[in-house]
């Protein structure tokens, strides 16, 4: 196996409206399958909406929020919602999907510092 890297992912757009979240998810899966670590995902700008527990898409479509929630729990990925961006958009502790948590931009900074690559998905 090649060198194992630590990836950090930054998502700047919400689910469905833009493809960013799907692209980020698929990238994360591919990185894990290659044996890399996905140290964390930071949700900023409208990206915070990927963590809502209120999502209820049609049955025949993917459930973006649930996919991230499941991935966080199964693979131990730290999915962080920015507190300031979250508050602006109505994401607070009470309506966070399982596997995600609220914290500050310091977490994004730590992610950028501690990972080998920060990959951003946005629009």
């Amino acid at each position, binding site marked *: 196996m090649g060198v194992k890297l630590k990836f950090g992912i930054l998502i*700047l757009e919400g689910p469905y409206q833009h493809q960013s979240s799907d692209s980020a998810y698929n990238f994360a899966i591919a990185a894990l399958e290659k044996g890399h670590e996905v*140290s964390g995902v930071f949700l900023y*700008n409208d990206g915070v909406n990927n963590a809502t527990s209120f999502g209820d898409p049609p049955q025949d479509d993917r459930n973006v929020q649930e996919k991230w929630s499941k991935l966080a729990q199964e693979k131990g990925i*730290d999915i962080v919602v920015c507190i300031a961006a979250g508050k602006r958009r109505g994401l607070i502790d009470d309506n966070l999907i399982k596997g995600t948590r609220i914290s500050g*931009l310091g*977490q*994004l900074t730590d992610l950028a*510092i501690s990972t080998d690559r*920060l990959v951003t998905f946005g629009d």
Partner: protein
Amino acid sequence: MANPEEIEESSDEIVKKMMFVMRKAPHGTINPYEGLEVMLIVAAYDQDLSAVFLDDGVYAIKKGQDPKEIGAKDFSTTFRVLPGYGIEKIYVEKESLENRGLTVEDLLLEVEVVDKSEVTKLMQEQDVLFPF
């Protein structure tokens, strides 16, 4: 799972070159504003930071913005605190200014004007690029 304490320990030792690439105009999207908020927080971490304003990003630091009538907050003057926060390498791209009929006199903070080739070179040197 990444342990927050472990991340903190490694943050003390590592210094990365991080550049904020500001390409978006203010008010049409929140990008320059929330980008600025990231800058102010990241500035506290003793990293090697710089910001480059190019494309429509030059509009974010243009003087004379008055968003009262659109009901938005004027955050433009907050860019002035960046040097005081430790972000001293602030660049604006010459071609982006010229294409928009602007000069440094139109900007609300002191910047270093660089041309496209210098921006290219600066970006290649970075470990992390934050796009806003």
